[in-house]
């Protein structure tokens, strides 16, 4: 069955259905290895993201979180392994897979001399989004940035830029959201709104993978968590995550699987 992108506007209220382990895989990465020269950044990582779930990615600096997200985002090719996004082989047909991915990275991917609206219009044209102006209004409302829609991005605070980056990532209603430390620069209120947005994106049928160092915050946004250490999956927590203490223990120990009913691949 081909995976479907979330088709509802994010601002629509819905009942959270919770994670469904039988839901189709939105993203399936298998035995991902990535080598930089002589150094192995990823050593055979398996990731399955199912529609309707959000997964937190933890790990110390250098564990391979960013490399993994960049591989899943088709920004870098893995040295070996397979990557399927929404039924598309992302390594052979990256362009079609990219339509199903929305990414927030360490950088905002925004042009500082353009306004949020102009940035979103540019990316919207690239994605070929119909009724683009209405869609831009919707996503700016979702991230509560409509009041600064016409200010140059370089004049916005780091947190505001991060919110516009999130609007860019969800503009084309991707099936899979990949967020690399999306909470960076956000104040407490904005972090809570981001957690709610992640939850709602999953509830709408999308899949979300986000890297973070804030365990308590991530525990509120994720159905399960994966701990990476030295390029390998060291621990899996959930679904569901009952308590942030589960994550603290898994992060500290970096070994053992705390999962309940987790498939063979994480």
């Amino acid at each position: 069955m081909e995976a479907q992108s979330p088709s509802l506007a994010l601002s629509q209220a819905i009942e959270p259905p919770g994670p469904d382990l039988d839901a189709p895989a939105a993203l399936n990465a298998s035995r991902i290895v990535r080598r930089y020269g002589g150094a192995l950044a990823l050593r055979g990582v398996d990731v399955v993201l199912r529609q309707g779930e959000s997964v937190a990615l933890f790990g110390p600096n250098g564990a391979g979180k960013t490399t993994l997200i960049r591989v899943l985002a088709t920004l870098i090719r893995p040295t070996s392994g397979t990557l399927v996004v929404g039924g598309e082989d992302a390594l052979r047909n990256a362009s079609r897979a990219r339509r199903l991915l929305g990414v927030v990275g360490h950088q905002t991917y925004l042009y500082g001399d353009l306004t949020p609206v102009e940035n979103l219009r540019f990316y919207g044209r690239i994605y070929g989004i119909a009724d683009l102006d209405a869609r831009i209004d919707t996503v700016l409302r979702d991230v509560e940035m409509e009041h600064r829609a016409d200010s140059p991005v370089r004049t916005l605070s780091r947190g505001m830029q991060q919110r516009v980056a999130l609007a860019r990532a969800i503009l084309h209603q991707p099936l899979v959201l990949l967020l690399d430390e999306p909470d960076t620069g956000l104040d407490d209120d904005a972090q809570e709104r981001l957690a709610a947005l992640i939850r709602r994106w999953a509830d709408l049928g999308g899949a979300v993978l986000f890297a973070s160092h804030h365990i308590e915050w991530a525990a509120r946004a994720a159905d399960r968590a994966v701990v990476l250490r030295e390029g390998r999956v060291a621990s899996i927590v959930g679904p569901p995550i009952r308590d942030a203490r589960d994550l603290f223990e898994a992060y500290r120990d970096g070994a053992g699987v705390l999962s309940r009913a987790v498939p063979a691949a994480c």
Partner: protein
Amino acid sequence: MLTFGRQVYAVLAKDALIERRTKDAVSAMLVFSLLVLVTFNFALDLRTEIMSAVGPGVLWTAVLLGSTLGLGRTFAIEREQGTLDGLLMAPLDRSALYVAKLLGNVGLMAIVLLVSVPLFAVLFDVALNPGPLLIILALGTLGFAAVGTLFSAIASHTRAREVMLPVLLFPVIVPILIGVVQATGLALGSTTARDMPWLSLLLGFDAIYVSLGALTFGHALED
């Protein structure tokens, strides 16, 4: 084809809007080209009888040096702002990106030529033959921009990207440089475009460089 055209337009319109606001590239290119022309004007005593031999070299040296500054910014600015990853993770045809950046660079070089050529004519007291000259300028600009756009993407991977571009660019554009200087020399006389053998050379190299650029651009962008 519709998607390709839409994507070319999107990137071109975005770059034009940024350049219209900042004027970073065009101002640097213009100032540098004009400075080179003025310097040559003071340094060389170009009498009429040697003008057609030396003048084209002076003009294209000024245009090429000035343009290199703009060509170098094509991808350096995307990489510095972190927007290159945004382009690469979008379903953007790499050839469409190349064509859009190429057209943007042709546009910038055209602005430089629009100012430099009349100034060159005034400073060196040269009578221009506009018909053939326009064709030569167009072909020369396309050739330089085709190679420059591709090599700007390659150089953007390096730390010393501003230095690397001329090092990579100049050896490869030698055939175009020879062709364009020779053709311009003939155009400064009364020759018509049809009689100039160098136009065929320029046309051939333009076709090769644009095709190679479009085909290899995706690889040039990968880390």
